[in-house]
């Protein structure tokens, strides 16, 4: 039994390898991009529009609404990054219903890569919003003593992001695989449904946490007020 799709290698040349994680990621990317391209090829700007366009508009506006609810005032700026995070993780979870498909998010390499993206994106958005000095100064809030703790927090939350998603997705896939070998009827279907729910929740959690981190990094610190004597 494979613990991760990374171990399912189709082709390898030195350290370069083509494993199931990368392959299924490409497949997901192809489905997402081709589907989006096909639907958005003929977008109607009037009142009459196709159901697929309605679906995409609902998804996009829902993601923007969630981003705004988190506290990011210009959701369009963060939509590409956060929306893609959600859609990729959600699509990977949904695709688990396809027999033989192993979600790329069940690979710790993928979740680490996504967490690293968040780790890089948070300071980038923070610096572009507040400026470099102000952002760096935020690590020394409320006192410079907190700098190491803030740095540890930064790394640990990234690690938590990666491990949380990996653990949930991997465990779901593993449970289904184990149940299929023990009780091949009915029960795996229930667990698959549960896995779908878990996957969607994880996609939501991953995206919202990333949004919260970005919101914390982009929020300009309020001016310090001296207590009145």
């Amino acid at each position, binding site marked *: 039994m494979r613990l991760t799709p990374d171990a399912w290698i189709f082709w390898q040349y030195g350290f370069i390898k083509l494993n199931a994680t990368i392959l299924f990621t490409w497949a997901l990317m192809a489905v997402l991009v081709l589907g989006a391209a096909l639907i958005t090829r003929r977008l109607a700007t009037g009142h009459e529009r196709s159901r697929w366009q309605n679906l*995409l508009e609902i998804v996009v506006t829902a993601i923007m609404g969630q981003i705004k609810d988190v506290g990011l005032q210009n959701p369009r700026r963060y939509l590409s990054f956060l929306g893609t995070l959600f859609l990729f993780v959600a699509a990977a979870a949904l695709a688990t219903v396809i027999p033989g498909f192993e979600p790329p998010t069940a690979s710790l390499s*993928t979740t680490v890569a996504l967490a690293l993206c968040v780790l890089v994106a948070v300071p980038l958005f923070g610096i572009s919003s507040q400026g470099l000095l102000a952002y760096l100064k935020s690590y020394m809030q409320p006192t410079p003593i907190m700098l190491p703790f803030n740095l540890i927090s930064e790394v640990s939350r990234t690690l938590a992001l990666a491990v949380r998603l990996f653990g949930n997705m991997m465990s779901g896939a593993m449970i289904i695989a184990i149940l299929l070998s023990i009780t091949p009827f009915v029960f795996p279907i229930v667990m698959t449904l549960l896995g779908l729910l878990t996957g969607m929740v994880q996609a939501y959690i991953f995206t919202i946490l990333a949004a919260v981190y970005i919101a914390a990094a982009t929020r300009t610190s309020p001016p310090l007020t001296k207590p009145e004597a």
Partner: protein
Amino acid sequence: MLIDWFTVGAQLLNFIILVWLMKRFLYQPVLNAIAAREQKIAAQLADAAATKAEAHKQQHVFEQKNQAFDEQRAELLRQATDAATAEGKRLRLEARQAADTASAARAKALLTDTQQLHAEIVRHTQQQVFDISRRVLRDLADVSLEQQACTVFIQRLRAADATTLAALNTALKATDESATALLRSAFDLPVAQQVAIQSALDDTFGQAIALTFETAPELVGGIEFSAQGQKLAWSIAGYLSELSSALDESSTATGAA
């Protein structure tokens, strides 16, 4: 080891590419479509608002025109009513005047008819009285009316007062051959009566009077002597006038009864 760093790098790259592709093929087109629709809706709303404002404006103008039309109609109706009233008054006045004129004409015609009838009655009565008198005189006294009329005329001439005679005398002196004294009678005077009258006149005025005899039936059995506008006459018209008055009184009394 659960982490394969090549896979991590590949997934990192894959994710960055996916972000770009999704932005290119999903977010931008969808957001642009939404923005275009919102813009179109905003334009439609603005257009609807403009149309509504224009409609309100048109309605206001229409109401003003309607009010002006109502006022104009009321004014025209009032003018027409006034004109009709004035025309009615004028027509009534004209009708009244026409009625008055017709009434006056009818009254005049009636009066004329009455006068003509009266004159006719008088003339007829005169003729009848004249005829009766002539027959009565002839049957009872064996004298003619003409002869008796001459006699009465001569008596009246002789019995005339001094003033009348003086006036006639003065008038006779003013006569000449071109304007002689005139004696008119209702009947042709026989020569004997002409001679008698000529003689009586000559005696009365003491001069030979150039006299012209003329027959005038309207004198009603009378004889009239005139010179330069002065007259001396006798006829049965006086009797007839009394008869007419008596008849009028009789008809009035009958009508009152």
